[in-house]
């Protein structure tokens, strides 16, 4: 742990020094870029609500709201559809052509149609986030179900399990590692989509929205502060799922390289 803190502080300091010198040697224009010596105090000011027009904590709440809207629906629909597609050959054959055709369309390409249909609402942002995170969750779940070892299903059958019991007691736990991979990848994409979805002004708050407003103000120190904030929240979210995965997949300890 101590060693880790040591490495983190070394690498962050090197990065900050590099950034600071880069600014003073090559840019030297406060309207184009800000050095860390300016960004850090700005960030502190923003996160402690001391700025009259940029309320960072409120923006975090709004962005998390958009994220929750889109990501939770992607979780519910993605996991259940993935389980069904992995479980039933017919459904798999019926649905996979649609999935394969829609999947390559980037979430950003859905923004215009989503704004036309849903107007500038929270739901419109949620929809973009849903599109972004749905496919990784669906595909990983389906992959997990498809790669459940046959012997586990046979053991369950010989021990007298019903079809539903096999789904609940064999297929789902056996695909859990894969489902969690889907959740983590999906959450990462969802968080990226939050920024993209908010850029178009679906609401007057949100990290993605403010970053664009700050650009219009020509305030790179605010832009970068928001970038830092987006990075930190995304990192925190990923750690939540990492923690949950280690909790739910305790049985895998000792089976896989960590």
């Amino acid at each position, binding site marked *: 742990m101590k060693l880790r803190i040591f490495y983190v502080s070394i690498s962050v300091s090197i990065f900050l020094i590099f950034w600071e010198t880069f600014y003073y040697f090559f840019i030297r224009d406060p309207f184009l870029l800000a050095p860390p010596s300016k960004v850090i105090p700005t960030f502190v000011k923003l996160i402690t609500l001391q700025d009259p027009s940029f309320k960072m904590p409120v923006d975090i709440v709004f962005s998390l709201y958009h994220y929750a809207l889109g990501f939770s629906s992607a979780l519910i629909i993605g996991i259940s559809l993935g389980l069904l597609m992995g479980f039933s050959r017919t459904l798999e054959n019926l649905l996979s052509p649609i999935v394969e055709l829609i999947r390559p369309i980037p979430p950003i390409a859905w923004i215009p149609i989503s704004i036309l249909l849903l107007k500038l609402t929270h739901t419109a942002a949620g929809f973009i986030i849903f599109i972004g995170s749905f496919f990784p969750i669906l595909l990983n779940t389906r992959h997990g179900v498809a790669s459940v070892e046959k012997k586990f299903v046979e053991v369950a059958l010989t021990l007298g399990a019903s079809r539903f019991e096999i789904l609940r007691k064999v297929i789902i736990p056996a695909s859990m590692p894969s489902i969690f991979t889907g959740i983590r990848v999906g959450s990462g994409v969802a968080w990226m989509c939050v920024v993209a979805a908010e850029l178009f002004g679906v609401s007057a708050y949100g990290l993605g929205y403010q970053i664009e407003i700050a650009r219009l103000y020509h305030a790179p120190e605010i832009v970068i502060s928001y970038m830092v904030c987006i990075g930190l929240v995304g990192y925190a979210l990923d750690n939540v799922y990492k923690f949950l995965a280690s909790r739910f997949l305790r049985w895998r300890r*000792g089976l896989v390289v960590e």
Partner: protein
Amino acid sequence: MSSEVLRVSNLRKRFNDLLVIDSISFSIKSGEFFCILGPSGCGKTTLLRIIAGFEDYEGEVLLKGEKIKKPGPDRVLVFQDYALFPWRTVIGNVLFGIESKLQKREALKVAEEMLKLVGLEGFEKSYPHELSGGMKQRVALARALVCDPAILLMDEPLSALDAQTRMEMQAELVKIWQRTKKTIVYVTHSIEEAVFLADRILVLSKRPARAKALVEVKLERPRNRFDAKFTEISQKIYDLLKD
């Protein structure tokens, strides 16, 4: 040794055009330890999977007079590689077959008693990957036994173990069999193992599997591998397999 539990008559099995089992007939008595012995790849595992209900077949396979069509807990199959659920603890694995049929407390009691019988007290909360091969096989055995099957089907269950553990497990298995009075159908390719364990041994030929002989082993238990009669029977089966 009273009633007949399983009757197999004129059993044939094809995979596409390949004939794997060619008209085999035998019957198994209740409480019997029955070994199926044959060379690798002869179709003995297929025969066991047919009894377990995993394969279709031609001919007749009757469990207490009823035709076997699908797998069920009256004929639990113990797999060669244990196939323990890695996401369940030892007790969780043993509970699998009974947790939805019995009340929670009762199921737990049955499972704990069974773990005691196979000698795994104190390992309830361990995960399969924390156990040795012999212990895993004990869990698999306990998981099958709690279902109280009419027949216990075992597919070379000890073949992945080292020689010494295998011998210990064989002796243990005989004890468990004597205590539970289960009917066991045991597939193996080891002559010595079959002679050590079985009441009767069905000797199969190379593929397609045909019944070469049905050898009765009338030795007292616990058996001694170095006994003259033991070697005599082994020699006889060895000669049978050779030609």
